[in-house]
């Protein structure tokens, strides 16, 4: 099901900019690219719910059209996304990842339309990255994002980079459907209306700003966000499935969030820190402040083989006081990983490691590997396992959900 875009303002902006694109045609570069692919996700054990399955096939397409003119100072970017899943009707979904016009005026860059930005430095969790909603059905790592309607102004000066955002049209997080896997032992129904515990609901216009700069080997960013929190602050039960599973809808609240991210290089060491303070401005948690952080290092051994392979050690610690997001998985956890970068013609990379909860000793492990096949194909494989979560912890519902996944994509 295509996630509906309810805000009409950004669509108007985009249509206007598309007309501009057509009328001012001093054509510079125009190109069509993207990928199509197939995916198999296989589970090693039988599911908790009788409606779930052991093997899921899916197909994906992400075509992109990019057109630049005026010496590259203006461009139009359109990127569409669609996935069809064998069983999960929520993972079968489409999205406009990008439908934006960008223009450069002296020292300012302006972007209008649906787009995406990335903030932050950490590898195993993205705390400060709040502008775009997470497309959680795509991948558990939270790195896939939904296109966000935005008006963005950006300036890059000697004293740093400033970004201002007006964000109309809130996007709801995607969650696996009843047949989807892995998922919590409740069904989060995103076809029903989500609850907004403030009056404007989905029409609330969010604001954000970010300042970032670097001095030598130090790099840092400060970000502010005021608007609808991307992560639900609660889930409200609405029904029960025929199999006795609760059906819930997400509750979204207004928040103010201040974020810091910093990175420093010392020889072969890269140190990273992200921290956020979130203040709930509506609903049951109104007035509550919550602190979350992730920080750690990556140490890289350079060229350890004749072929020039690099081996990186990644260690990151996660903390949350859980005062707003009570079910957060990363509350007192360590993530440890080895990163193998082969530096070969096929761009082979492997990231393998585990996350450990310091309170419950539950362990999750992961292997992510990718390489190119020939000139146009890529193969990605991942394995994720979940062990030892206590009954009262969210990962307990993933205890039979160890899986392996293979993605084969053709790029054009």
């Amino acid at each position: 099901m295509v996630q509906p875009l309810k805000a009409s303002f950004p669509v108007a902006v985009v249509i206007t900019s598309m007309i501009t694109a057509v009328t001012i045609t001093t054509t510079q570069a125009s190109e069509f690219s993207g990928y199509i692919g197939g995916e198999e996700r296989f589970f090693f054990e039988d599911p908790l719910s009788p409606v779930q399955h052991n093997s899921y096939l899916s197909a994906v397409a992400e075509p992109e059209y990019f057109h630049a003119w005026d010496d590259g100072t203006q461009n139009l970017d359109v990127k569409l996304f669609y996935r069809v899943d064998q069983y999960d009707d929520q993972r079968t979904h489409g999205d406009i990842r990008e439908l934006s016009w960008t223009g450069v005026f002296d020292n300012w860059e302006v972007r209008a339309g649906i787009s995406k930005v990335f903030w932050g430095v950490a590898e195993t969790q993205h705390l400060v990255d709040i502008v775009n909603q997470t497309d959680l059905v795509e991948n558990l790592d939270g790195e896939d994002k939904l296109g966000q309607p935005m008006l963005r102004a950006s300036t890059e000066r000697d004293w740093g980079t400033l970004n201002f955002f007006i964000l109309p049209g809130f996007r709801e997080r995607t969650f696996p459907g009843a047949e989807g896997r892995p998922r919590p032992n409740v069904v989060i129904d995103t076809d029903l209306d989500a609850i907004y515990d403030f009056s404007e609901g989905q029409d609330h216009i969010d604001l954000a700003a970010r300042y970032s700069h670097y001095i030598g080997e130090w790099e840092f960013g400060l970000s502010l966000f005021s608007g609808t929190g991307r992560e639900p602050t609660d889930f409200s039960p609405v029904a029960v499935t025929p199999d006795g599973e609760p059906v819930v809808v997400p509750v979204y609240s207004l928040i103010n969030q201040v974020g810091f991210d910093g990175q420093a290089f010392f020889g072969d060491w890269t140190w990273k820190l992200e921290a956020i303070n979130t203040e709930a401005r509506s609903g049951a948690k109104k007035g509550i402040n919550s602190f979350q952080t992730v920080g750690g290092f990556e140490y890289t051994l350079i060229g350890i083989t004749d072929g020039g392979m690099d081996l990186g050690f990644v260690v990151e610690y996660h903390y949350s006081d859980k005062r707003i997001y009570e079910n957060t998985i990363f509350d007192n956890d360590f993530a440890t990983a080895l990163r193998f970068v082969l530096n070969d013609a096929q761009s082979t990379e492997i990231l393998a490691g585990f996350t450990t909860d310091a309170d419950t000793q539950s362990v999750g492990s992961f292997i992510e590997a990718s390489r190119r096949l020939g000139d146009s194909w890529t193969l990605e494989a991942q394995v994720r396992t979940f062990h030892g979560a206590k009954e009262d912890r969210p990962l307990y519902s993933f205890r039979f959900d160890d899986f392996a996944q293979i993605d084969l994509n053709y790029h054009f």
Partner: protein
Amino acid sequence: MNHTKSVLLISALLLTPLLAFAETDEEKGLAIAVEADKRDTGFEDFTANMVMELRNKQGDVSTRTIRLKTLEVIGDGDKSMSIFNKPADVKGTAFLTFSHAIKPDEQWLYLPALKRVKRINSKNKSGPFMGSEFAYEDLASQELEKYTYKYLRDEMLNGVDCFVMERYPAYEHSGYTKQLAWVNKDRYVAEKIEFYDRKNDLLKTLVNSDYQQYLGQYWRAAEMTMKNHQTGKSTILKWEDYKFKNGLKDKDFSRNSLQRAR
């Protein structure tokens, strides 16, 4: 006879002051590098397209196409941007590098799928550039301060009269102990460079060929072949569409412009 002798004697006497300036091989080496640097100064900026062919020992070829922009920075390393067009899965991936002679570079990688601009720990300039036999430091701008120099001898290389000199990297994390360069005496450009690894073994040989002159001054090799003697792999760079003095500015080498580059 006598006449010839006296001419030789006078010539020798006249040349003595010149010889006194270039008396050591180190000074002569530096003088060659200074002249080469002088002749390549003032290009302001250039853009070019590069086709990179990677060959393994079995002869399998994989190809990348990359667009390059470079801004000359007087008194420091140049600023450059390289934008990948092929293979298709890395299309739009781009590097922004502010290179420095003896400090680590500042380098950012733009990953279009994540829309992420990632600062890279660029202490290591010796790593392979996109799986090729070229290291980042091989492709970076050639600043005078990057090496100390020593002139060895004159030698003909494929009919070209060359200075042969050694260059010792000044950057402490360079992948090389030394480079042996054959510098064209007429054009002051490298015809061939041998790279010696940290164990001082011959690692790679670069052969530059098909030099073209631009704006009546700047020589650029249209083809560069790097052979790795230890792995048997090689990489050929083919340069096309060199354009100089495009009026590029600092702001064309910003992190915002990195995201717009295609």
